[in-house]
C-alpha cells in the first residue's frame, strides 16, 4: 500500500507533513506514521524517498516478526518452542527479546499477565487467529447479561480441549502455567519450558513490535506506530506538539471516548468488547485470568493505559482489565508512570488522576 502524504503543516521553521502507511499483520491493522519534513526528498544514492523506504521497511519488519512470533504458523520460532515439550531449544533473537519482555511483564504484574496460558486460550475457544474467529462467529454479538461467567468444568469436554497437564476440574495445574519455571540461558540463547507448558505472546508481541518500529523510525523523523491499538510514540512532532490519539468508545462502534496527547511512550487498550463468543452457554473472551484459567470475570468493558512504552502499556491495560474497576484503578494509581481510563460493563467511565495531563493538547 502506498504511503499517503497528508495535509502539509506549515510552520515558521520548516514545513512538514504526516506520512503514513497502513497494512495488516499479527492479526491486526497496523498504522505507521512519520512526521517528516518537506525538504529535499532524497538523500539516498538510489534516489528513493527516505520516508517511503522506511515506511516500507516497517511493514517488512512486522511481517518478519509475525513469522517468528505467531502461534498460528507451524514454522514460526514460537511454534517450534511450543512443540519442544520440555526440551532445551535454541531460539532466534526476535523471539528471545519478546519472551524476555513477556516475562518482565509477568514479573511486574505479579503473574496477571503471563505468556503461559495458551492451553487456557484454546480451551476458551481461541484456537485460531482473530481473522478466522471473525469468519466463524456472527455479528453483531449481544452483550452478556450479568457480566462474564467462567466456562467452569464443562470447558474440558469441549471440542477444543487443551493438551497438557490438567486438574480434575479441567483447569491447568499451576506447574504448567508458572512463568517462573521457564529457564532462559543467554549464553546459547536457549529456552527450556516445563513439560506441558505452551506459550502465547499475544500479551506482549504487538506492544513490543510497536516500540521496536517507533525506535527505528525515530532515526528518520518523529514516529507513531499503532499495532492493533497498542501505540508507541518516539517523540513530539516537529512543531513540538504531542500526538493526538483518540480512545475508542467500547460502548459505541466508531465513537470516541476522549483524545489523549502523547509526546513519548505508549498507550494501549485491552477490552472484552470485540472478541467474545458463547461456549456451552457461557460467554467467553480472550483475556484469560491466570488465577482461574478462564476468561476474566471482570466488571470492565475496556481498560486504556498510558505508560513509558507500548509493551508496558499493553501489559498494564490487560492487568487492569483482569483486576476489575476498583482493584485495577488502585493498581494504576500505585504506579507513578501509569495513567488510565476504565469503562465498566455498566457504561460508566473512570479516569485516573494522572490522566489529566494527557487530556490537554
Amino acid at each position, binding site marked *: 500500500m502506498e504511503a499517503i502524504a497528508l495535509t502539509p503543516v506549515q510552520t515558521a521553521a520548516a514545513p512538514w507533513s*504526516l506520512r503514513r502507511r497502513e497494512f495488516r499483520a499479527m*492479526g*491486526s*491493522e497496523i*498504522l505507521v*506514521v512519520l512526521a517528516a519534513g518537506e525538504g529535499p526528498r532524497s538523500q539516498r544514492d538510489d534516489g528513493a524517498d527516505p520516508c517511503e523506504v522506511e515506511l516500507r521497511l516497517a511493514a517488512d519488519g512486522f511481517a518478519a516478526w509475525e513469522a517468528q512470533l505467531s502461534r498460528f504458523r507451524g514454522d514460526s520460532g514460537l511454534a517450534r518452542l511450543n512443540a519442544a515439550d520440555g526440551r532445551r531449544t535454541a531460539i532466534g533473537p526476535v523471539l528471545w527479546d519478546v519472551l524476555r519482555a513477556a516475562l518482565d511483564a509477568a514479573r511486574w504484574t505479579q503473574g496477571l499477565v503471563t505468556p503461559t496460558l495458551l492451553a487456557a486460550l484454546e480451551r476458551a475457544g481461541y484456537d485460531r487467529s*482473530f481473522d478466522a474467529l471473525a469468519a466463524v462467529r456472527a455479528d453483531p454479538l449481544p452483550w452478556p447479561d450479568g457480566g462474564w461467567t467462567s466456562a467452569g468444568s464443562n470447558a474440558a469436554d469441549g471440542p477444543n480441549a487443551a493438551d497438557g497437564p490438567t486438574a480434575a476440574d479441567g483447569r491447568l495445574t499451576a506447574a504448567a502455567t508458572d512463568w517462573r519455571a521457564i529457564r532462559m540461558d543467554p549464553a546459547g540463547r536457549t529456552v527450556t519450558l516445563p513439560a506441558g507448558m505452551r506459550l502465547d505472546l*499475544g500479551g506482549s508481541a*504487538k506492544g513490543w513490535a510497536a516500540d521496536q518500529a517507533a525506535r527505528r523510525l525515530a532515526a528518520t523523523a518523529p514516529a*507513531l506506530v*499503532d499495532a*492493533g*491499538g*497498542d*501505540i508507541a510514540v518516539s517523540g513530539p512532532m516537529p512543531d513540538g*506538539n504531542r*500526538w*493526538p*490519539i*483518540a*480512545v*475508542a468508545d*467500547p460502548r459505541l462502534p466508531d465513537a*470516541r471516548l476522549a*483524545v*489523549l496527547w502523547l509526546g513519548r511512550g505508549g*498507550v*494501549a*487498550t*485491552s*477490552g*472484552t*468488547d*470485540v*472478541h467474545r463468543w458463547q461456549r456451552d452457554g457461557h460467554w467467553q473472551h480472550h483475556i484469560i485470568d491466570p488465577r482461574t484459567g478462564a476468561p476474566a470475570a471482570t466488571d470492565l468493558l*475496556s481498560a*486504556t493505559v498510558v505508560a513509558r512504552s507500548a509493551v508496558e502499556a499493553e501489559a498494564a491495560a490487560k492487568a487492569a482489565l483482569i483486576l476489575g474497576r476498583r482493584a485495577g484503578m488502585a493498581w494504576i494509581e500505585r504506579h507513578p508512570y501509569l495513567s488510565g481510563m476504565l469503562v465498566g460493563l455498566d457504561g460508566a467511565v473512570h479516569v485516573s488522576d494522572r490522566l489529566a495531563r494527557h487530556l490537554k*493538547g
Partner: protein
Amino acid sequence: MARPASDVTTVRPGGKPRPGLRAPGAPGVKMLISSLALALTVAGWARLATDRQSQMDAEPEPTVPAPEFVPAAEARTISYLVAPLPTLVPLIAAQDASVSGRRQAAPVAVSAPVLGSMRQVAAPPPPAAPAPVAVTRSSR
C-alpha cells in the same frame, strides 16, 4: 328658474324678515360662521394628522446598525470601542464669601459628541482541535 323661497333671505332695510322665510338675523350668521370656522379647523387638523401619518409610514424606522465583527486574529474578547464621553465641566464662578448678589453662573452642560461607530466583537469560536492521528482500541 326661481329660487325656492326658503333659500332666499330677504332683508329689508330696517325691516323684519318676512314671515315664513328664513331670515338670518345677526346671531344666526355669527353662529354659521363660527360653525364653519370650527369645521374647517377640525378638518384641517385631521388632514394634518393624516398627512403626518402618511409621511411617517413612508419613512423607514431607524434601525440599530448591525455589530461589526472583527476577525479572530484581531480580537479574542468582547470589547466595545466607544469614544469616551467628555466630562461635564460646570462653569461655576467662584462665589465671593460676601454675598454680593452676583448671580452664580449656571453650569453649562457640554453636549456629548457624536459617538463613534460601536464595534461589538464576538468571541471567536475556539480553533478546531487537530484530528487524532491514531486510535487506541481493543485488538481487532
